[in-house]
């Protein structure tokens, strides 16, 4: 089998060798439980707290404002559930504002909170790029609003939201602001003070850290109820013995991301622009989805009219390119992704989506090979419709 060129870094990234190295001692040697009294446990606690300080340093907060979780989705869940349960119990605010373009970890959680827990959910309007404008929040925010949750950057279409402005509006109304920065953190500056958010979610495997570890930033003074109860770990907000090797890996990956941010951005961004320009020029009936400028620097997303996006991915995979699509479906029963409908694409366009996301190992020659093969494959897929 020939080598596959991986162009799906928004789905996940490989663990950086340096990160793996940092993790290794904590599996079999420094395996202590940070809650233990003995010195082995103390050393584990030290690793944990050092990791916390590292993360806090990167996102510009205090160490005790970081809760380690098992993934970005858990962070999102804890933010939504934790805030809405606390607010409902302690205030009259019983409403969450979020958007349908959020990762399912947010939108499905909001739906369940509404269905089973009596929380009221308001869905924020999006513009044609899938962006939540400040006016959309202004329109819907009210004294009943407990929390606004809007992602920093969209995973499917790469659009970056004006979180700073949204936070300002929230704070003017005394409302908490959460952002899901899982997809964004690999390339954007994540500074909680600058963004003005009260809660922020991160996931390790999007920035060359391991899968199965994430973090939630919770601004001091924010009341949050735990959803995983038990021992008093993570300030009583997330029970369960901390996953030290993964947390160490998470912190190291985030530290490297911050350290190498400019380098990484300038590596992927020109290739992104080359892909976007070439695809739109060389493939008839193609459109860019998401914002043309305010988008993640490694993120290209398109729709092709009258193309089965699933089969395009099959063709690409067979040709040695691993990509993704908004309608990606393992069962061959494609529905256009919700996001495609939200940005006003009809089904003849919406089923033909393609997401190409770049990473540190992507080379100019990879991109050239990809661009050489894509138009023919789109044409092939169209013929088979």
């Amino acid at each position, binding site marked *: 089998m020939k080598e596959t060129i991986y162009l799906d870094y928004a789905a996940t990234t490989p663990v950086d060798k340096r990160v793996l190295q940092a993790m290794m001692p904590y599996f079999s040697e420094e395996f202590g439980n940070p809650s233990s009294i003995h010195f082995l446990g103390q050393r584990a606690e030290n690793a944990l707290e050092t990791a916390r300080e590292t993360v806090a340093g990167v996102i510009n907060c205090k160490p005790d404002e970081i809760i380690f979780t098992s993934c970005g989705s858990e962070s999102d869940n804890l933010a939504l559930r934790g805030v809405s349960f606390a607010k409902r119990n302690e205030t009259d605010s019983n409403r969450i504002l979020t958007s349908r373009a959020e990762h399912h970890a947010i939108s499905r959680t909001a739906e369940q909170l509404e269905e089973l827990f009596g929380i009221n959910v308001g869905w924020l309007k999006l513009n044609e790029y899938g962006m939540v404008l400040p006016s959309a929040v202004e329109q819907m925010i009210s004294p009943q609003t407990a929390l606004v949750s809007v992602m920093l950057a969209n995973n499917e279409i790469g659009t970056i939201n004006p979180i700073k402005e949204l936070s300002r509006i929230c704070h003017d109304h005394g409302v908490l602001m959460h952002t899901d920065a899982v997809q964004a953190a690999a390339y954007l500056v994540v500074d909680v003070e600058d963004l003005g958010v009260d809660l922020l979610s991160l996931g390790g495997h999007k920035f060359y850290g391991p899968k199965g570890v994430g973090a939630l930033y919770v601004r001091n003074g924010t009341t949050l109820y735990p959803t995983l109860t038990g021992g008093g770990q993570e300030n009583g907000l997330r029970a369960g013995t901390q996953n030290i090797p993964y947390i160490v890996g998470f912190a190291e990956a985030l530290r490297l991301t911050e350290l190498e941010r400019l380098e990484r951005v300038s590596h992927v961004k020109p290739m992104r622009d080359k892909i976007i320009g070439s695809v739109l020029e060389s493939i008839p009936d193609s459109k860019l989805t998401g914002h043309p400028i305010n988008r993640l620097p490694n993120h290209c997303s398109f729709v092709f009219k009258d193309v089965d996006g699933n089969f395009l991915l099959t063709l690409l995979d067979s040709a040695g390119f691993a990509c993704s699509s908004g309608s990606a479906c*393992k069962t061959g029963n494609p529905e256009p992704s919700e996001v495609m409908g939200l940005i006003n694409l009809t089904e003849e366009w919406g089923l033909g989506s393609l997401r190409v996301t770049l990473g540190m190992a992507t080379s100019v020659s990879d991109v050239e090979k990809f661009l050489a093969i894509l138009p023919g494959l789109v044409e092939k897929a169209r013929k088979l419709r």
Partner: protein
Amino acid sequence: MTKVVIAMSGGVDSSVAAALLKQQGYDVVGMMLRLWSEPGKENSNRCCTPDAMALARLVAARLDIPFYAIDAKEIFHSTVVKYFLEGYGQGMTPNPCLVCNRIIRWKFLLDHALAIGADFLATGHYARLTTKSIRTSENTLNDQFLLSKAVDRTKDQSYVLHVLNQEQLKRAKFPLGDYKKVEIRNLANQFGLPTASRADSQDLCFLAGEDYREFIIRNSPESHKPGDIVNKDGKLLGKHQGLSFYTIGQRKGLGLSSLEPLYVLSKKVENNILIVGPEKELGQSDLIVKDVNWISGKPPNNVFRSEVKVRYTARQAWAEISLIKGGEVLVRFDEPQRDITAGQAAVFYKGDIVLGGGPIG
């Protein structure tokens, strides 16, 4: 490396076929069609439920081959299901598997397999493929593909494959043709394949395990038109519930009282009449086949003798085949046959080899 796409279903046959191909050293890719199901019945469709697809995916993962699901809902509905409903509407007993093999498996899926660079499409059908050299009119030697019966006669599926032409057979592989079903089950164990032991079923996949009549009532209410049941002399014996609900040779469910058992002899769609009669009136000696597909591309002779199968499950019988006008073929059996039913196919065999076949008119 030769690339082979195997059509997978999650069942034991296609799973073992995939494993055999892999063992033979091919670059194997699994594909599974997502076929049409009636809205709301997706989970009971016999051949492509989410469970079956998850199983096929697991088998592919065990074999370390890529697996892709292909969406064929629209084309399956607009061809196979439409043909099924229209066939019943015209008083026939259609065989949608034949249309599926011709249009979905060996056209739509084959095209998708070729598009990803495959050299062959393989299926878990029980049938065999051989070649012989023939001399063309330009006096060059060419390979001709011969389709023949599987080693396991009880599982032989050459009948449903009679719709294939040389172009399709050139791209086809049937890895199971040389095996007996019991050997396939053993191989599945040897390969450690996680295939559920699902009962073999003759049911149509999109009927979701229910009686076809219910499906017709829901999806083609106009064909559900009651009318008269008469005997050969035109004597009124009772009422039928709609011609779609009866098939030639049927005895049960006629709702008639009579001294001797009565069987469905024929249907007159023009005036919505069902003709019944005693067992001795059943059977006919000849039939016409329209649109014959000759596996080799042409008939062996203008008149020839052959064994003929008139249903997937029918016993084959000797007949004289003669070409008549416009590609139609007249089949004259040595003995009258009971199961001749419009909509099913008559398939001609020379020994084990399938010569061709086509729908009974």
